[in-house]
């Protein structure tokens, strides 16, 4: 039986490249402020939470001021959550490609995740400006951001592939994803630091693989320290388990995509 070989993704690199380009370009072609939205979205989110939790209900944040903490939290979280939500819709949203063109469908998942990178880079520029404003200087440990972001992308890939594949069969997933992501946002140290969680719950918080990722990214940027080794290794292991499981499930369900979609 002739199916597209999974090792053939290299053959579709141009398709991947052009799909990323289509995704990024179409997202900003219509909007008046264009790329500025990549900076404005996390800025507004951070301002709202700063008003509520930085000023009204003061959350203890240790030495780090609340605004850079919440802003960095949001840009790294948004990268994940936007990747997951666009990946989830990427198969059903491209049904014309799925039913008319033969290609490995994970290309659609990859492209929707890679398409989020320009936003992230743009918003990182704002983060650096905010850090400068608070006189927080960057250390060499900021380089940790790169490997941890790769882990975050793989995590988004795992969750996105899983949800996208199920979404072809049951569109209920489309409705579930925003709720899931909102719950996950509040259960992850994004708008608060990990230390502000009462000690008896800390262990549970650390069982969330996104905790290690978010904390690792934030410590690299703000405190200029390497990630905490155990929670980072935990996040990496969970990510790898998830991505292998999701990939196998995706490839199994992929065969039916063009018939069912």
């Amino acid at each position, binding site marked *: 039986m002739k*199916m597209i070989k999974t090792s053939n993704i290299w053959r579709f690199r141009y398709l991947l490249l052009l799909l990323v380009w289509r995704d990024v370009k179409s997202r900003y072609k219509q909007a008046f402020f264009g790329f500025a939205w990549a900076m404005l979205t996390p800025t507004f989110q951070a301002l709202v939470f700063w008003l509520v939790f930085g000023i009204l209900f003061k959350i203890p944040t240790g030495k780090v001021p609340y605004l850079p903490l919440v802003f960095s939290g949001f840009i790294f979280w948004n990268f994940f959550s936007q990747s997951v939500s666009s990946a989830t819709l990427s198969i059903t949203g*491209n049904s*014309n*490609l799925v039913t008319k063109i033969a290609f490995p469908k994970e290309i659609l998942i990859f492209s929707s995740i890679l398409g989020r990178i320009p936003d992230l880079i743009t918003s990182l520029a704002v983060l650096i400006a905010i850090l400068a404003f608070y006189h927080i200087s960057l250390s060499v440990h900021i380089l940790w951001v790169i490997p941890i972001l790769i882990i975050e992308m793989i995590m988004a890939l795992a969750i996105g592939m899983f949800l996208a594949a199920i979404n072809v*069969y049951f569109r209920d997933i489309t409705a579930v994803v925003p709720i899931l992501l909102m719950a996950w946002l509040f259960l992850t140290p994004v708008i608060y630091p990990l230390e502000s969680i009462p000690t008896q719950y800390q262990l549970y918080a650390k069982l969330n693989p996104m905790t290690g990722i978010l904390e690792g990214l934030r410590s690299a940027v703000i405190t200029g320290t390497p990630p905490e080794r155990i929670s980072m290794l935990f996040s990496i292991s969970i990510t790898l388990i998830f991505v292998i499981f999701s990939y196998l499930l995706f490839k199994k369900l992929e065969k039916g995509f063009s018939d069912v979609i």
Partner: protein
Amino acid sequence: MEKAVVINNLWKKYKIGQPKKLGDALPLFLFRQKLKEFWALKNINLSVEKGERLGIIGPNGSGKSTLLKIISGVTSPSSGNFTTNGKVAALLEVGTGFHPDFTGRENIYLYGTILGMNLNEIKQRFDEIVRFSGIRKFLDTPVKYYSSGMYIRLAFSVAIHLEWDILLVDEVLAVGDIEFQKKCLLKIEKSLGSEKSLILVSHNFDIVRKLCNEVLFLENGQIKKNGKANSVVDYYLKHVQG
């Protein structure tokens, strides 16, 4: 002779009424209900030689498009197997993946890669593609402002500059004005040779007679007749009228 496509005992089943909501799936699962099945293709055996130009005809719902989809790799057979020998290009629809907000120029690149070209191939053929389409003036206009004719011309011009050993075409030739149709047919005829094969699904018997040397008549997912183009088309026309 060397074979381009060989199909052995190929069957394709579709399930009717696949649930799209969990609420609909639950009773099916709980009461172990089976979905209705529909066999779109039943026991297809076929071989297409290199250089052969095969037309597939038959009434709507006879399985013509399903067969092309399987050969192109878009969907997989339920049982049986097939092999293809050479680079397959499938035109199951023109303009798949076109982005309405993108300009003609951008869509040439986008559509070209969707059809399997790489960026260099597209760059090399860019001028030829534009010349063939005849829409140079609107190259930098978003395609959403194109007339449907212009849209199809552009898409087809990209598709027709693909490189292939086996070309699968589903009905898409019946688009655009007569003049453009002729131009496309001519281009396909020119690219054909002793090594290249064509499989064409069409309801246009003039095109089938002109372009194909062999014809397959499908009905209800089965091969009803297979043979020389003119005799099978004549048989089909008699069959339909009688």
